């Protein structure tokens, strides 16, 4: 297994099981624990691994969190493109993600708030108010069926026969 192959295998495994035991992962990949730990810490330093997150279906909790996707059209800045505008947006802690998008608009911003009003205020006061931002279209997420490659909507049970040749 080359270094690159090992890295890809580690990443693929931890992308969906961040809590995997390194000892177990070493067995599964046919290598040793130290090699995996080293590779992971190198990838952390290189910024390849940016964090170990938990996928939560907030809808199943009492939390009333609202998530919005906002399509932002803006004017790029001389010499910096969209970077400065993006930075001014992503520095707000309530902003979850900011992507530069091809097509009909420029930035896609996802935002979390505890109420609709909170999000509305953010869009009117913080986003639209910025000079370089031309327009915002806000979409609220009503239900999450699948997130980060994981189906949240339904759990399927094993329907196979118990014993087959």
């Amino acid at each position, binding site marked *: 297994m080359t270094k690159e192959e090992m890295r890809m295998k580690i990443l693929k495994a931890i992308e969906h099981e961040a809590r995997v035991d390194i000892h177990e992962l070493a067995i599964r*990949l046919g290598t040793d624990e130290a090699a995996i730990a080293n590779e992971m810490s190198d990838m952390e330093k290189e910024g390849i691994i940016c964090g170990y997150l938990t996928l939560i279906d907030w809808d199943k909790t009492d939390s009333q969190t609202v998530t919005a996707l906002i399509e932002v059209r803006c004017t790029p800045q001389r010499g910096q493109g969209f970077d400065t505008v993006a930075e001014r947006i992503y520095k707000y802690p309530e902003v979850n993600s900011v992507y530069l998008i091809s097509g009909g608009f420029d930035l896609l911003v996802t935002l979390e708030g505890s109420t609709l009003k909170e999000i509305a205020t953010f869009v009117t006061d913080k986003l639209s108010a910025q000079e370089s931002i031309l327009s915002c279209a806000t979409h609220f997420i009503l239900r999450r069926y699948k997130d980060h490659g994981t189906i949240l909507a339904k759990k399927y049970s094993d329907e196979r026969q118990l*014993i087959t*040749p």
Partner: protein
Amino acid sequence: MKNPIADRVSELKPSGIRKFFDIVAEMKDAISLGVGEPDFDTPWHIRDEGIYSLEKGRTFYTSNAGLMPLREEISKYLERRGLPRYDAKKEVLVTVGGSEAIDLACRAMCNPGEEVIIPQPSYVSYEPCAIMAGAVPVVIDLKPENEFRLTAEELEAAITPKTKLLILPFPNNPTGSIMELSDLEAIAEVIEKHDIYVVSDEIYSELTYKEKHISIASLPKMRERTVLINGFSKAFAMTGWRLGYCCGPAEIIQQMTKLHQFCIMCAPTTSQYAAVEALKHGDKDVVEMREAYDQRRRFLMEEFKKMGLPCFEPFGAFYVFPDIREFGMSSDEFCTKLLEEQKVAVVPGTAFGASGEGFVRISYAYSIENLKIALERINIFITELRKK
């Protein structure tokens, strides 16, 4: 009243697995490591192609041998896997699973009284298929010390002037054993020397974890005496679609197609359309599933090592075949007790032939989480046994 049943049918032994299944079925909360099919769903793009074919109203028979585009894709796929070219028109037959192809091959190739050599432990249907074809099964008991591979000496010793066919079941269910190039070269020599034919059941060919699978048909002078059987069940997680195929010399495939035409007509049309998609765009899915199986396989081997349960390292299919002889009970007893005491279902090695005595088949077509729970219980079970 006359006996409604033909003698040759009532004389046929029921599958050993059936008996065990009945016991397991009554135990509602058992954890099973007993299945012989993938735990993955068929990849969505393949299912979608099946659904699309239904929407388009493609609900008619196909030609007896199967859709021409599918046969062409099969031929191309095998070529990509290092096999010689098979003529899609005359040398490829699409069947209802690999199982049908096994039955057709026996019936198309065997005269009454001719012998079919069957290495065991192996899949449950070879022996009955040979018997129903009027042939005489000759069993080779594969040896644990050879990692259940077939050796040239064993083959040579089983051959008589009446031998017609060798069934070659590798990668193997239930042992997980594979045949590497040198193993195949050794038996190919014997096959040619005695002028016998081979039915090579390669349904697990995509699931090998060492070098890539090598088909005996790719060895010199073997293509003309080999019927290669494969299918979509294991490679693409398509068991329920019931779709397999066989390839071989035109004179054999044509006669098999004749039988297929009379008893089956054609393989399910929806499945055939889905299978075209699988062969065209499914390579990536195969790689991902193989990697998942391989991780579980390593995990299982390590757990067995910790438990001190002897097991040779299998490099094929999705089974491990640990040795339980130290406990001084038959495979059947072991499995029944394990089920009763710890509610874990595994399959006795004897379900796959007498030479499976002393072994059990454990399938790793389960998530690591499931495997962990089951292995913990197996560990408790054998620790108790050792205390006694």
